[in-house]
Each structure stands twice: as C-alpha cells, then as structure tokens.
C-alpha cells in the first residue's frame, strides 16, 4: 500500500518541479524583456556564455544603410535576381495568385474586426469561448496565408534585401561578454554568415528583431 503512495508523491514532486521550472522560465523571460525595454539591450545566456544585442549608434546606422544599398545595387545589376512583381507574375502563371491571397487576408481581417466587436459585448461564458475559438482559427488562417505568401516571395529582391539588412544588423550589434567587457562576436560579416551554430544565430536574430522591430506580431 505504501509503494503507490510513494509513486504518487514522486509524480507530484515531478509535477511541482515542472511547474517550478515553467514559472522560473517565464520569470526569466519577463526579466529579459524588462531589461530590453529599460536599457535597450537584449541579453541572453547560451552554453554558459553571456551574449547581448544592443542599439546601433549613428555610425552603425550609416553602416547598415550603406551595406543595404550596396547589396541592393548588386542584386539589381545581376540578372538572376528578380523583383517581387516578377515573382507575382510567375506564380500567377503557375496557378498561384498572390493578389488573391492579399484580398483574402484583407477579408479575414475585416471579419476578425466584426468578431472582436461581438466578443467585446458578449456576456455568456459559452459565447465568449465560441467567439475566442473562432477568432483564434481566423488568426491561424492569417498566419497560414502569410507563410504561403512569404514562401512564394522569398527569392524576390525586396525580401532578400530585408533578410540581408536584418542579418547585417545582427552581425554588427551582436556581442559576447569576455572578462567583463562586451566585444563583437564576429570580426567580419563573412564569419557571421558562415557560423554553423544555428541556435546561437537564431537567438541573436530574435533579440535583434525584438529590439529593432518590436511591433511585428510574429516575434
């Protein structure tokens, strides 16, 4: 009779541990975001090392703009790179109308506004649940359509430039703490580009996006 009791206790302890870990993680995430807001620095730990992404100074802003411009000229000069309009035309010929996706997105957004208005004035828990689920399903549909559109336009010059500017910004502002001094992680953009630790780069990019483009729902 004692054994099962012990098992239940162990299970409960594990459950409490899980919950405690979750609470701790949420707390760390909250503290991290509070630091970012307070001090314009996104700090994170990775493999027991401290990293951060900070705001650019004016000189660095100029460097980012110059790098973006140089890359744009390279893409325009090179005939293998095409614009978004070109890719829209190509996809339309292949039976994927991106303009229709845009129209569908607008229609769903309008419907969502109506549903949100209804949710605001709903009183019964059952109605609130039903409307919440409906809105969440519309949001999922919006994400699906945006993903489809982004996927189809990923090779367009406009998208390539956006990606490059984000990567370059990240490379420039990404620092590691060494003996209490913050130093740039990569000496050259090429080193950043060649880095095969995708988790580290992913975290750095996420921090850059949070700092620089905070009104993006996707982050």
């Amino acid at each position, binding site marked *: 009779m004692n054994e099962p009791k012990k098992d239940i206790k162990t299970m409960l302890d594990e459950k409490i541990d899980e919950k405690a870990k979750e609470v701790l993680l*949420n707390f760390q*995430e*909250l503290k991290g*975001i*509070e630091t*970012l*807001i*307070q*001090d*314009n620095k996104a700090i994170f730990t990775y493999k027991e090392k401290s990293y951060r992404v900070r*705001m650019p100074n004016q000189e660095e802003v100029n460097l980012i703009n110059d790098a973006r411009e140089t890359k744009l000229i390279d893409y325009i000069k090179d005939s293998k790179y095409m614009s978004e309009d070109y890719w829209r035309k190509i996809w339309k010929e292949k039976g994927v109308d991106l303009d229709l996706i845009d129209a569908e997105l607008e229609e769903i957004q309008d419907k969502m*506004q109506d549903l*949100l*208005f209804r*949710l*605001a*004035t709903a009183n019964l828990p059952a109605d*609130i649940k039903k409307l*919440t689920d409906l*809105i*969440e399903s519309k949001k999922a549909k919006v994400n699906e359509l945006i993903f489809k559109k982004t996927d189809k336009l990923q090779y367009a010059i406009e998208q390539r430039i956006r990606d490059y500017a984000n990567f370059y910004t990240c490379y420039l502002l990404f620092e590691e703490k060494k003996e209490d001094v913050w130093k740039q992680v990569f000496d050259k953009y090429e080193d950043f580009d060649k880095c095969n630790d995708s988790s580290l780069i992913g975290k750095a990019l996420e921090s850059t996006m*949070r*700092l*620089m*483009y*905070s*009104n993006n*729902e996707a*982050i």
Partner: protein
Amino acid sequence: MSYMSILRKLARSIKYQNAYNNAEKFGLNIFKNKFDISDAQNYFLYWCAVYNSLYEDMAMNEAYINEEVMNNDLRTDAYLVYKKRTRNKKKDDKKEDKYIRSDMDAVVFT
C-alpha cells in the same frame, strides 16, 4: 507566453502604469536612456498609454471593461475595437445632429 504578451503584461503592471503617470505628470524617466528611444520602447509606451486609458475607462465604470478583460489580450483587443467603433459612431451622430440643427436654424431665419 509570447514576447508580445509579456510586453503587454509589463505595460499594464502597476509598476509601469505608475512610471508612465509620473513621466506624464512630472517628466520622470521610464527608461535608462533619455534619448534615442528604440522601436521596442516606442511600442512599449504605446501599450502603456492604451492600458492607461483602459484603467480610466474602468474607473469611469464603462461597459464591457473589467480586470478579467484587461488580463486577457484577445478580449482587450476586442474591447479596443468596440471602443473605436462606438467612438466613431458618437462622432458621426454629433455631425448629423449639428447638420440637422443648422438646417433648423436656416428654417427659422428664412
């Protein structure tokens, strides 16, 4: 919890609502930097202002807003849509009312 949810949670917290009010009334700083406000800080200030107005609505006993709604991002978004639509409707009604009154005045004077 997503980044956006945490940002909104911080913006509606008593700590940052007080900081926001003190910044408005006495010019005290919310952030460590005085200048070069980042996009993240701008967006945070936007949400501080939104929640500040919602706390005012709650204090005025406005319909459809309460603590439960404030702590739910989706329901807060819903209330903001409701607020915008009813405010626009009130504006339209006022315009219409003004138009009718000016019409009536015209009748009196002619």
